């Protein structure tokens, strides 16, 4: 799960990691009031959306007077913000973070991720702050320092020294001490809140010698939200596609894509592979939809309804390999959906596995208009013909 920058900075404050003075606004006038309450000018007006690359899309503005604050806030709030990560239609901005502008002397990068291969958290530190860390890593790998953290011991002092004693010139002792404290606090936050990623880019030293987290990004482990109730409440439903939000209420795993073939599959791996065969047959999947290994009749019905709510869908492919899930349950769910909403696009069904005969006969004995595919390849070809 992702959260907004202002929420991440509040967590930083809770953990004693210094952040700029700031306030949240949802209108230009609130933005001006906010600026009045902060040290400055200058101020920074920052769009609060989950997608990265906000600066490139004009979502981060440095301003010097109240009129400029109002103008910048008005512009950012009035149309969707397009960044390299939002897609062409952009993301509507509902909240702004107004912050004091700081005089920056030096920028660092500091982050923690999970290294899947080494099965441990890894802290990443770089003196090339303010840039995309992936780019720095590709072009100047020597500037990206990584320390793998043994979860039994936590971040050890020698690891922070490994980061520091390659810096030229070596910062003052007091700065190093403060940096080391921030690293320890950031690791404490990562562990105690079940994060999957934390990132401060940039972590700055101001001209007055203060160290401040200028930006803040935190992702959380979805699997741990059951024990992180306060974090789960930070979820912003406006950041989700409307259909995706509805699907998650039904406990369906749905991701909207750009094509026109609606797909319903049981199991995540098979769902991905089904999207792939649709594409190989020359069509484009409209969605990823995993109804789960053990879906109920009701979930299948809801799944069909969600797919049909996407007006771009021109044909539907149902691919079920019954294991724990029984084909008769699937068939009943589809028949029920057809009674509740009109299925007005061609439907191709491929059923295999547990109770397949019963599932097929339920479909055949209904009023449903559908075609049967013998295997995945045939199913994909049939659905591609329908939309070409």
């Amino acid at each position: 799960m992702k959260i907004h920058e202002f929420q991440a900075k509040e967590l930083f404050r809770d953990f004693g990691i210094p952040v700029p003075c700031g306030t949240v606004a949802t209108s230009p006038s609130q933005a001006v009031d906010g600026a009045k309450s902060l040290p400055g000018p200058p101020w920074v007006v920052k769009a609060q959306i989950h997608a990265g690359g906000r600066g490139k899309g004009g979502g981060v503005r440095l301003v010097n007077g109240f009129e400029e604050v109002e103008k910048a806030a008005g512009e950012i709030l009035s149309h969707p913000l397009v960044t390299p990560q939002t897609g062409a239609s952009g993301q509507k901005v509902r909240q702004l973070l107004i912050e004091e502008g700081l005089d920056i002397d030096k920028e660092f990068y500091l982050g923690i991720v999970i290294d899947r291969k080494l099965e441990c958290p890894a802290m990443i530190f770089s003196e090339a702050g303010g840039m995309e860390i992936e780019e720095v890593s590709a072009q100047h790998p020597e500037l990206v320092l990584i320390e793998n953290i043994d979860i039994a011991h936590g971040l050890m002092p020698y690891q922070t020294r490994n980061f520091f004693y390659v810096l030229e010139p070596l910062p003052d002792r007091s700065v190093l001490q403060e940096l080391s404290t921030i690293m320890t606090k950031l690791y404490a936050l990562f562990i105690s809140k079940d994060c999957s990623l934390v990132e401060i880019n940039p972590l700055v030293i101001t001209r007055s010698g203060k160290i401040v987290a200028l930006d803040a990004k935190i992702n959380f482990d979805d699997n741990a939200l059951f024990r992180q109730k306060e974090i789960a409440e930070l979820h912003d439903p406006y950041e989700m596609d409307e259909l995706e939000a509805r699907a998650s209420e039904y406990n369906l795993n749905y991701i909207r894509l750009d094509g026109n073939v609606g797909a319903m599959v049981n199991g995540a791996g098979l769902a991905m592979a089904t999207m792939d065969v649709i594409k190989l047959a020359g069509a484009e999947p409209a969605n990823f939809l995993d109804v789960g290994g053990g879906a109920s009749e009701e979930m299948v019905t809801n799944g069909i309804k969600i797919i049909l709510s996407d007006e771009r869908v021109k044909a539907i492919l149902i691919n079920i390999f019954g294991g724990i899930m029984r084909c008769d349950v699937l068939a009943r769910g589809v028949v029920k959906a057809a009674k509740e909403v009109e299925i007005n696009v061609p439907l191709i069904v491929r059923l295999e596995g547990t109770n397949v005969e019963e599932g097929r006969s339920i479909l055949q004995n209904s009023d449903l208009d559908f075609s049967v595919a013998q295997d995945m390849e045939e199913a994909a070809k049939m659905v591609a013909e329908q939309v070409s």
Partner: protein
Amino acid sequence: MGILVDENTRVVVQGITGKEGTFHTKQMKAYGTNIVAGVTPGKGGGAVEGIPVLNRVKDAVDNYGANATCIFVPPPFASDAMLEAADAGIEVIVCITEGIPTLDMIKAVRFIRKCGAVLIGPNTPGIISPGKTKVGIMPAHVHKQGGIGVISRSGTLTYEVVDQLTRIGLGQSSCIGLGGDPIVGASFVDHLERFKEDSETAGVVIIGEIGGTAEEEAAEYIDREFNKPVVAFIAGQTAPPGRRMGHAGAIISGGKGRAEDKIKALKSHGITVVLNLGQLGKTAEQVFKKD
């Protein structure tokens, strides 16, 4: 033969009194799995399907000779269940549970390895050595005893692949689900090493997906040391970056973990990669039936 589990495996089911645990205990028993005991703390003394329910895994090992476990315990308690099994001396731990926090797993895998146990999963369909035993939740009827090893990161996708193999007459020695989570107990390479030593296994199918670098590591290992033919498939060629595709481990981040990179790595090491899942059976027939 086959790997890790066979007709001599003595299974304890942890979480046997839960809905899933009871259902799959019945299914495993019907397949012929030797389930010697079940464990649900606090419910010891009862029975499920004629199988004694105990309070502690230790008792299942000491009194019933259990050497493998199948875990159906909910996510908040699953790492405790895995650690209990490892500490009690269980050799093969299969954890079906989906939704365990990553940090719990980081701690658990260290301990389990220290105890010398093998962990399959979590978030896995388990392991089956067809004709001998099944420790997991896969539909047994699609499997057939034979000489092909299957290692996969997925569930239903594996059933699809196994079904295609069975239909063309290629039976399986053992089929293993690694688990769909970012941190799992064993990698492709760990099991490939076992299949290499298994005289019943003539070839291996590996089924990967987007996220992580496990397939790339497998490709290097196969090229360097593996002496049997391999067919590979990678799911998620059309997956958009940054989105979690159902499995917590299936996410492309920072330009890493893409299907095309994995396919390229496998091909560059001389491994046959099937791009269209519908053709996996046919390709496997060509590769494995050559000799």
